[in-house]
Structures are given as C-alpha cells and as structure tokens.
C-alpha cells in the first residue's frame, strides 16, 4: 500500500540545488514514486501540496527547517529511502573530480600553455596542413604525423617554417626525439653525443635504439618525413636539422639517414653535412658510395653499420670548439664574385663550389637556372668568365687587357653584400706583360673602398704561370700580396679556400636559423589529434595539453570556407 513518509530536520540549511539533486537521487531509488527535499518556506510547502506530498509534519515545518518527503509503494521502501539521505548527501562530496580543462581549440591550448614550443599534429590529412599552419603562426615547431598532405602544402608549410626559424617534421613523420622526449613512435633512448636526422621513421628508431644498445646516446633525433628529400621539397627540413646539429655543442657526431635521394638533393645534403664541421655518418640506404670516407663524411651501408660507426666516431671525435673562428666581415657581407679571364678556370671553380654553396650564378652556368639575367650585373654568388664573346667584342681578351676587369672589380667592391672577390691572373707569352702592376693597385683601391665603408673585402688571386715566364711569377705574386690579395698557386686550392670561408659565412640553410633553446629540455607540447601521443608525452613527464580538436565548423565545408576567408581578409 502506497505510503508517504516525511522527515523534518531543524535548522539544517542546504543550498536548494543540493536538495534538488538529493531529491532526484531519491526518486531514482526503486519503488519510490515521488520525493521532495526542500526548505520549509511557504512557497515550497505550496509546491509540495500541489504534488500531494505535504504531510502534516511537513506543513508544520519552519522556513529554516529541511523537509524530506518520500512517497513510495509501501512504508518500508519510503522509510529506507529516507534513511539513505545522509549517505546520498555524503556521496556528493566525494565525487569532486580532479580533472583539468581540455581545450577545444588550438588558440585556447596555446593560451593554457604559452611555453609550448612544439605542436604534434595527427588529424586527418585534409585538415592537417591547416592545423599545422595555425601552429606555425603561433610560433610552434610542428611534428606532422598526418599523411595525405599534398606536396604543395608541404612545400608551403616548410617555406613558412623556414622564414620563422621553425621546423616542420613531416608530413608522415612517425618519430622524433627532442629534448630527451620521444614524439610519436619512439624508443626510450638515453641522452648522448650523437645527433640524427632521418627521413625514415623506422630507420631513426633502429639507429637510435642500436646507439643506445651500444652504450651511447642521442642529443636530438629529427624526423623529416619521407618526401623531404625529393627534388621538389629540396630537403628543407633535413638541412635545418643538419644546421641545428652543427650548432648544438652537445652533438659531436651526426647521422643522416634516408633512402637514396635525388642526385641534386644528395649533393646539397653532402655539402651541408661537410659544412657542419663535424663527423657525419651518412646512410642513404642501399646507396653505393664511391668511397667509404670523404673528408668528414663517412658512408655506412646499413642502419646497424651507421649506429656502430657513429658510436665509434663519437668516442674518438675531438671535442667541438664552442665557437667557430670569427671572420673579419661586416654584417650583410656574404657573397662571392669571381672575375675570371680563363674559361676553364671559371668552369672548374663552378664545379668545386658545388661542395660549398647551393647556387652560383654565371654567364656560363652549370645549370640554366643560374644563368645571369645580365652578365654586367652580378647576382648573389657569381662567377663571370670575362673571356666570353659577349665581353670581347671590339676589345682585347682580358688576359691582355685588364681594363674591363678593373672596372668590374670596382663595381663589385662597392656592393655591400660582397665578401670575397676571386680573380685569376694568367701569365706567359701572349699575356699582358705585367698584369700585377695594373691589378695590384686596383685590388688595393677596391679594398680601400670597402674599408672606407666599414667593410672588409677579401681578394683571392689564383696565379697561373712559372718562374721562367716573361712576367716573373714571384714578382707578380709579390705585387699582388702587397696589394692585400691572398694568392694561390693552384685553382683548386684558391677556390676551396674561398669555399670554406663562404660556407661559414652563409650557413647551411637559407631562412632564419632555428633557435637551439627551442629544442632543449624541457619539452612542452600541444597535441592535436591522436590522444595516445599526449598520453605517451605525459608518461615521459613532458608537459602536454591535448586539444579536443574538431574540424572547423564541424566539417561543414561551406561554413569552413567562409571562416577561412574571414581569417585571411
């Protein structure tokens, strides 16, 4: 038989919301038909009356009394329900959860963790470039796990990143080790003296694990994504990686891993590898290197081989000097201008400089892309063959007549971006009877011009001749040296001398260098996409904020495109 039980608690104030929740909990008990838990105000009593819950006892309650009324199938159920009130009230206090807020937008995440220097992106490919771009605009390095990102987007992202001094590792980058923390799929590898740049995820895992097994460790393991070494992308991330490792003083040996890249890209990478000034183990997986060693470059045949070679080199490598020796040039001086009278000398210079510089313009370039628009005006690094027809129409060959070269020398000396001028001086029968008597004063004047403008201009002269030539080799050399030129007797040695200095002057990558601070511990990251990446960062005690990301406008393309246009305008 239905029963209504009521309990009155004197002077027991509870917030009405607490009471409403309690009431809901009571109604949910089996066999309970209705319940009221209210303070005994007149208005509340009217409400109870409307529901037929206002017993005499409840009606007698005062405004600061707590009324608990339960109507149930029978007396015992009603009584049992009321007996549970304290239990229900107590349960509420223990539920206080300890979770923290999970942001829904990247902006909110960035505000929550302003110190985050990385963003991990593993959203579906169609959205990945947009998310990564947002991360770049917030100044974050990007670990781009997502695949199905278009080549155009990859090039665009990497260009934006380079301008900002940021890294885009990926797309389709599965693993990296940064600041002692593994991103994506990564092994737990100890810190050590070896830095790795890898266009292959499992390659990076294999090599770093092996290095760990051999008792050594890793400074940084930087992924690039498999397409980075394509001709179109031009190894942008790999080059940035080599640049970082070259400047990181903890890194004593560098390992570079990829499938065999395009020929031109390979050459660029090897040039950059040389420019690091550190031993570099290169494993272009399956690549048949012409020799095992090439200066500081050591070719490995397998991943195991690469790890072992790196560990052994790291044990024997001399400590790295903290700073490379300072060059005398002023800020902004970085380009070479080569003014050759000998065509073959110019050609060999262009070939040799490939080891040092990404591009040299010329009126006789190695590749059409680097042909000077106007042979009378130099661009960036330039080698001119002044013996070409365009310069010799109506005048003597520059081996006989120094006039054109001297004027060009003055022109180049006035360019504030020029650091080094390279000349050849060819002696012998038929040549000018005393070229140094004209070139010497011109060199001195050019250097003086630069000096007056607060710059240091270096002039390097390659002299071709013998002590039996009519001009007298040693007398010519002496005059040139007195004018302030660095004189070389072989074309290769002169060009390589120039190349070394330019390499130091121009760095490994164009664009803004990545700040080393941003790849040092502690790692703080924003994770957008796979939650497991956030969990593994958390497990490694890195700071991470996971974004509960959804596509813009829930994937509604029309609205998303409106929003995109509003952002851009």
């Amino acid at each position: 038989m239905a029963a209504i039980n009521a309990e009155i608690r004197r002077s027991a104030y509870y917030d009405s919301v607490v009471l409403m929740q309690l009431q809901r909990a009571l109604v949910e008990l089996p066999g309970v038909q209705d319940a009221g838990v209210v303070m005994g105000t007149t208005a509340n009593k009217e409400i109870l009356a409307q529901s037929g819950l206002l017993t005499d006892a409840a009606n007698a309650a005062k405004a600061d009394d707590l009324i608990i009324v339960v109507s149930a199938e029978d007396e015992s159920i009603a009584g049992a329900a009321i007996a549970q009130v304290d239990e229900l009230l107590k349960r509420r206090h223990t539920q206080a959860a300890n979770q923290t807020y999970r942001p829904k937008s990247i902006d909110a995440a960035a505000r929550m963790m302003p110190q985050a220097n990385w963003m991990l992106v593993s959203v579906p490919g169609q959205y990945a470039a947009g998310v990564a771009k947002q991360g770049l605009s917030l100044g974050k390095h990007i670990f781009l796990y997502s695949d199905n990102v278009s080549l155009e987007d990859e090039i665009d992202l990497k260009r934006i990143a380079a301008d900002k001094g940021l890294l885009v590792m990926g797309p389709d980058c599965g693993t990296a080790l940064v600041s002692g923390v593994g991103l994506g799929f990564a092994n737990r590898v100890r810190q050590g003296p070896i830095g790795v740049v890898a266009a292959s995820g499992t390659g990076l895992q294999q090599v770093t694990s092996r290095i760990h097994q051999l008792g050594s460790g890793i400074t940084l393991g930087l992924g690039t994504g498999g397409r980075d070494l394509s001709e179109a992308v031009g190894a942008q991330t790999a080059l940035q990686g080599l640049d970082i490792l070259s400047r990181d003083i903890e890194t004593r040996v560098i390992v570079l891993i990829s499938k065999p890249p395009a020929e031109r890209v390979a050459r660029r990478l090897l040039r950059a590898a040389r420019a690091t000034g550190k031993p570099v183990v290169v494993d272009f997986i399956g690549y048949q290197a012409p020799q095992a060693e090439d200066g500081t470059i050591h070719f490995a045949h397998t991943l195991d081989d690469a790890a072992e070679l790196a560990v052994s080199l790291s044990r024997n490598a001399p400590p790295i000097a903290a700073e490379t020796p300072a060059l005398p040039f002023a800020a902004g001086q970085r380009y070479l201008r080569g003014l050759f009278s000998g065509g073959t000398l110019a050609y060999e210079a262009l070939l040799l400089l490939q080891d040092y510089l990404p591009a040299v313009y010329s009126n006789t370039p190695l590749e059409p892309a680097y042909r000077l628009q106007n042979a009378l005006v130099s661009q960036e690094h330039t080698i001119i063959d002044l013996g070409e027809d365009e310069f010799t129409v109506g005048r003597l060959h520059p081996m006989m007549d120094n006039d054109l070269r001297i004027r060009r020398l003055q022109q180049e000396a006035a360019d504030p971006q020029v650091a080094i001028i390279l000349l050849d001086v060819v002696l012998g029968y038929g040549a000018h009877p005393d070229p140094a008597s004209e070139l010497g004063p011109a060199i001195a004047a050019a250097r003086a011009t630069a000096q007056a403008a607060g710059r240091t201009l270096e002039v390097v002269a390659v002299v071709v001749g013998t002590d039996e030539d009519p001009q007298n080799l040693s007398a010519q050399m002496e005059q040139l040296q007195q004018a302030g030129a660095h004189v070389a007797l072989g074309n290769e040695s002169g060009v390589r001398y120039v190349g070394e200095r330019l390499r130091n002057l121009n760095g490994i990558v164009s664009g803004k260098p990545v700040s080393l601070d941003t790849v040092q511990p502690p790692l703080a990251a924003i994770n957008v996409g796979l939650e497991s990446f956030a969990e593994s960062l958390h497990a490694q005690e890195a700071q991470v904020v996971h974004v509960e990301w959804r596509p813009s406008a829930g994937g509604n393309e029309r609205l998303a495109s409106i929003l995109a246009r509003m952002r851009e305008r």
Partner: protein
Amino acid sequence: MDIDRANTETVERMMEARPVLVGLGKAIDVVPGMRHNLLLHAGPPITWDRASGPMRGALIGALLFEGKAQNAAEAEALVKSGAIDLEPCHDHQAVGPMAGVTSPSMEMYILENKTHGNFSYSNLNEGYGKVLRYGAYDASVLKRLHWLNDVMAPVLRHAIEAGGGIDIKALLAEALHMGDEGHNRNKAGSILYLKALAPHVAKAAPNADVAAAILKDIGDNALSVLNPVMAACKAMADAGRNIEGSTIVTAMARNGTDIGIRVSGLGDQWFTAPCPQPRGLYFPGFTAEDGSPDIGDSTITETAGIGGFAMAAAPAIVTFVSGTPQDAIDTTLEMYEITFTEHKYFTIPALGFRGTPTGLDIRKVVETGIEPRVNTGIAHKDAGVGQIGAGLVRPPMALFEKALVAYAEKYGF
C-alpha cells in the same frame, strides 16, 4: 575589412558602459515606442498562435492587469482579434525575465549608461512561486502585481532618486566575488541591492509598515536584483550594437518557442531557431516532460559576459548539472574559446581574477562547434503553473551558422 578591430570596438563599448539604476516610471511614460495597445514580450517576435503556454498565460495576465479583459477568454479573443500588438522587449530597449511580458501601466526600472548615454528598462521582479512571468494570472498573481506597482514602485523610485542612483555595474562586479554569476544566482547581488536601498526606503516609505513590507520583500527574494541586472546588461550590450563588421552577439533571447540572436555588424536582424529544452533539476513532483522550451530575455547576462559564462564564480550552483566545482571552472574556460575578450571589470577569484569571457563571437562558435552555455530557470509548459526547476541550456548551433552566412553575404565573404 578588419573584423578584429570592429570586434574590439564592440567589446570595448560593452565593457566601458556604466549602467546606473536612476529611477522608475510607467512603461507608457518611459519606454520608447510604448503604446496603449502594445504588449512587450521576451525573445524574438512571436504571434499568439505560435506562443508557448507560459507566454500565453503571461499575455492573458497582463491584459487582466491592464483591465482590458475581464477573464482569460476575453483576453485571448482580444489578442487574436489583432487589437493588441505584440513586440519584443528588445525592440524597445527593454528586457524581461521568462515571458517578459510588459504592459503599458507597469512600473519599469530605468537604467542609464553614463558612459554612452543610452537607456534601458526592465519590469519589477515578482519573486518565486506563482507569478506572471511564468504564465500565472490568477487573482493572487494580479494582486501581487498591483502591490508591486502601486505600493513598492513609488517608494523605490524615491529611494533610488534620493540615493543618487545605484551603480549596477559596480554591484555586479562585487557580487561575482560573492558567489553570484548574475543570472541564476543573484543572492549576493540582491543583498547588496537591499543594502543600497534600505536607508532610503526607510525614509521614502509613507510609514514603517510599508517600509518593512518592501524591505522584507526585497530581502526574501533572491532574484530581486535580477531585473535591474538584466537591464544593466541590456544597456551594456546595446552600447556595442551596430558596429560595422563586428561578429559579436549583442542580443540573445527566447520567447518559449524560438530562440534568437542579434549580431552587432548585422543590425537588428534576428536569427532564430526552435528553443531547446533546458537540462537541469526539477522541483518535487515535476519532470523534464513538464518543462516548457526555454524562455526569457535573461540570456542578456551571458551576452554581456556574466551568467553561465561566469559559472566559475558561482560553484554553489554547479550541481544543476551533476557537477563539481571543477565543472564550474571548466564551463567558464570553455566559454573563453568562443568569446572575443576577457572582461576588464568583471573578474573571477577562482581563476586568479581573470576577466569573465566577454563578447560572444559567431566566428568562434561556428569554428569550434562549441555552443554557448546559458543558465536558466525552467517554466512549466502549461500557463500558470510557474517555475518547476532550473538548469542550463545551449543555444543551438543553427543560430550562429545562419548569422555567419548572413554576415558573409552582407560583407561579401
């Protein structure tokens, strides 16, 4: 066009507005555009045939109160005949809680924005129980309305004028530090209001009995300050209206059938969708099935950067939705994701005195898929029953999507 700059101007104006309660007056005398055959109501425009139960009940009650009808049937016939016009409060610089029905002879709070000079208005709060704003219109309801209008209002007017006005913005800022969020919880604000009024009521009342009755009424009603607060929020939101290119919401209101928003850069156009049903807790004897779709202009509080947006300030009421104090914090943190700025003057102690999320931005709502979070009372779906619970509601995404499309069309995106 620089959208962010337009939005900055909108929110600056909203935040710099300083609404002061300066007096009271009859709607017909003070509310712009008020007419003898006009009833104002909450939310976007509505007609009788589409009106919800509580809205119909309140319209009937108002006509009875005005003496234009002798019973419900007469009142209904009068409205249906077309002799009575229905217009949104929002079109007359006014706001009203729940049904928000305001008739010509009702006494209105007058708020003046001292910074920008605009005025706003709201009716008087009737308290809990059976009240007109929930669609009740029996004799007790009308009797109370007459007491408010004839006894309390004249005294309040004198008291407010004698005190030189009450700065509601300052009151709100203080109440947020005392556990109010300014929408569902106005306990602290109402006590501050009582404190400000009391000495002047004591002097202005014709005798001690009337003074005591008025002070008791205000003191017993934990929502007594809600109406001035809503009008203050209206004055602040209106200060941000009609800024060319701005994507900030300047009005958000429900009439029990439709919910609507207005956007600063889109003038007075309403964007509407069906009202959702609130989620929450119910008084004894009632369930979700008894509830009316959401109703009232009180979402002007969230529009101005308080209410549900300032939930972190009011942990005591988070249990409306299951919650823990962390839920209150999370609610406010989530609202930061869809608002343009943080309030300069309304701050939240539990968040290190961070400003409340201010300036609901349609771009961010659509972008993130986060619907705003609004606190609300729950009305019975039938006229005259009254409030049956309280909870929260999320204005639907469709509102913001429609507004975004209209914005794109107007501004050529």
